[in-house]
């Protein structure tokens, strides 16, 4: 049993080390047989899913896990901390990663011919980067993982549609480098005034130097840097191109996870590196954030209406959905925060499902223009039903996940006395309906000329299974939102806002 104990004691670091090792072993596995990397990545992501689930269960039952790398005690050594927030986000990353890896088999073979091994290597390294960002308790370690995830995302995007993907990837690289440099500068400023790199230690020291201009500058650098990373409205320019031109599988993974992890980082820095008092009362950063988010919600939806490429439409819709999450965070009360955090889970499920459907339709028909979707309801009934469920959830129909988080956000806005935000949430739901209805209309009610020749031509099983699971979860968490909210989000949001203690 000694060997088993070594594994259980080191689970926190294994969440990062496993995808890293799996990533570097993928080329070797690919050398043995071209078809093997898919099985390999699926196995790896499944093991990571088990690891992260175990971590979250441990956190819920026994409290925050502190893991000291190499036995060096913080603040000198690097510390990995898993609390409810990153345990929750890690589980989402692992789950979406697993679903996308199942899906990837046929899609990657068709869209990235001859480069499947490279694709899967980068795929695993992206998961490593995201896991690392989420799990680390050390601010510089955070920066390194941020760059790992960014670099892998650039190369993942560049594997898409010939020229366009390259330019999209390059633009993302320029924006991403600016963002990362700002974050690095912010880290430098905080290090200069606190002399530590450990997040918890900084959190303890910052209240003494609230008045310092350096701390204020650091906060500004972090917020701008993360706003670029999450694609908050005026800084979103890189996002639509990158999501549109990446290979379908890459789009689903990046759209489902990259921005969510960015939002996680934003929350982590605002509430656990800086303090709730500092960001809510002293600098009013949350208030600024909530207005920026409200703008993003409306503008993202308006832009989405104008698009004819399905992936580009979903990308703009992502900008609006990020707005929901940040609105919840910016409201700075417990209910709004729960809504925002719940929307991290919901948006990951919905947007991943929608991008997977877009990929499946592209795989079967080669069409991405949504005005050419006529008759698809007859041709690919299961795929389009998944699209219907995820789309309705996006609109916020009761019984789906989208409704639950919007409900919490509306309650939070009322609680904060911001009635305008309630109006914005309602208007944005109508705009969502407007752009999703065009797609539903074309899929089910549009009649192609040669309708009698239409054969049922469903996507392969490896694609259908993850899509159906994601759609089922959209409904499941819509009906039973109690579980994530009660066990994770309620104590978490109170702890973040400094009302209750982190268990």
């Amino acid at each position: 049993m000694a060997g088993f104990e070594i594994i259980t004691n080191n689970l926190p670091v294994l969440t990062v080390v496993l995808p890293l090792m799996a990533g570097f072993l993928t080329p070797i596995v690919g050398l043995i047989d071209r078809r093997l990397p898919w099985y390999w990545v699926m196995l790896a992501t499944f093991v990571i899913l088990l690891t992260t689930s175990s971590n979250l269960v441990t956190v819920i039952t026994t409290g925050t896990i502190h893991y000291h790398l190499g036995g060096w005690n913080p603040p000198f050594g690097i510390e990995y901390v898993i609390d409810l927030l990153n345990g929750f986000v890690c589980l989402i990353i692992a789950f979406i990663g697993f679903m996308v890896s199942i899906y990837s088999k046929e899609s990657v073979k068709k869209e990235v011919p001859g480069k499947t091994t490279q694709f899967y290597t980068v795929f695993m390294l992206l998961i490593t980067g995201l896991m690392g960002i989420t799990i680390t308790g050390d601010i510089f370690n955070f920066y390194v993982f941020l760059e790992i995830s960014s670099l892998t995302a650039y190369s993942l995007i560049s594997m898409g549609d010939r020229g366009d993907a390259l330019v999209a990837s390059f633009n993302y690289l320029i924006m991403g480098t600016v963002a990362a440099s700002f974050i690095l500068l912010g880290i430098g400023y905080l290090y200069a005034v606190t002399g530590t790199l450990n997040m918890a230690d900084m959190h303890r020291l910052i209240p003494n130097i609230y008045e310092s201009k350096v701390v204020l500058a650091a906060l500004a650098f972090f917020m701008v840097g993360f706003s670029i990373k999450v694609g908050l409205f005026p800084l979103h320019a890189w996002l639509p191109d990158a999501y549109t031109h990446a290979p379908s599988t890459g789009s689903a993974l990046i759209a489902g996870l990259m921005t969510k992890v960015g939002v996680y980082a934003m929350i982590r820095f605002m509430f656990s590196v800086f303090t709730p008092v500092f960001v809510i009362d002293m600098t009013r950063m949350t208030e600024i954030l909530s207005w920026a988010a409200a703008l993003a919600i409306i503008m993202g939806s308006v832009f989405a209406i104008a698009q004819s490429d399905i992936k580009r439409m979903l990308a703009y819709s992502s900008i609006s959905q990020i707005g929901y999450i940040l609105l919840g965070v910016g409201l700075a009360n417990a209910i709004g925060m729960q809504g925002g955090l719940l929307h991290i889970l919901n948006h990951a499920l919905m947007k991943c499902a929608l991008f997977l459907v877009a990929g499946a339709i592209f795989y079967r028909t080669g069409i991405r223009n949504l005005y050419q979707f006529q008759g698809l309801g007859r041709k690919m009934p299961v795929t389009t039903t998944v699209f219907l469920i995820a789309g309705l959830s996006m609109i916020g129909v009761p019984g789906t996940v989208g409704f639950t988080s919007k409900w919490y956000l509306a309650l939070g806005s009322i609680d904060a006395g911001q009635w305008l935000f309630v109006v914005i949430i309602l208007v944005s739901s109508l705009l969502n309906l407007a752009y999703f209805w065009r797609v539903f209309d074309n899929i089910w009610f549009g009649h192609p000329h040669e309708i009698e020749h239409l054969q049922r031509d469903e996507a392969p099983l490896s694609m259908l299974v993850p899509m159906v699971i994601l759609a089922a979860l959209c409904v499941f968490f819509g009906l039973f939102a109690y579980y994530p909210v009660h066990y994770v989000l309620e104590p978490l949001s109170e702890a973040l806002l400094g009302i209750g203690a982190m268990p």
Partner: protein
Amino acid sequence: MTGIIDIVHAEYNYWIYTALMMIGFYAMIAKKNLIKKIIGANIFQTAIFLFYISLADITGGTAPIIWEGHEDVIYTNPVPHCLILTAIVVSVSTTAVALALIIRIYREYGSIEEDVILAARKSLQPEFSEYARQKGGEE
């Protein structure tokens, strides 16, 4: 007047890094040539490295080595140096990825000038050419 000079002189390292950073930032945004953008990014990142390194320095400081009989040695803070070693590696990798992308963009469009690439992309987009044809037909 002397006040400003004193302020600049006392913290000249910060002024240098700020100026360098702005030069790099300007190049990243304003230059049309992709290679020049990357050079701008490198200047930007190097400026930040200089900030970290100058942060660590102390007047009269030497290498952080303590040996017997010399426990009271004044040494510079080694932590920023270690951090920057890592950040340099990150910067080099970013540059490598960017250059690889530029090579492939050049093969695709035959140019590394942003406006030429933009024009080439516009003419390649099917919807745009459709639109252009309709416009042409009307006139």
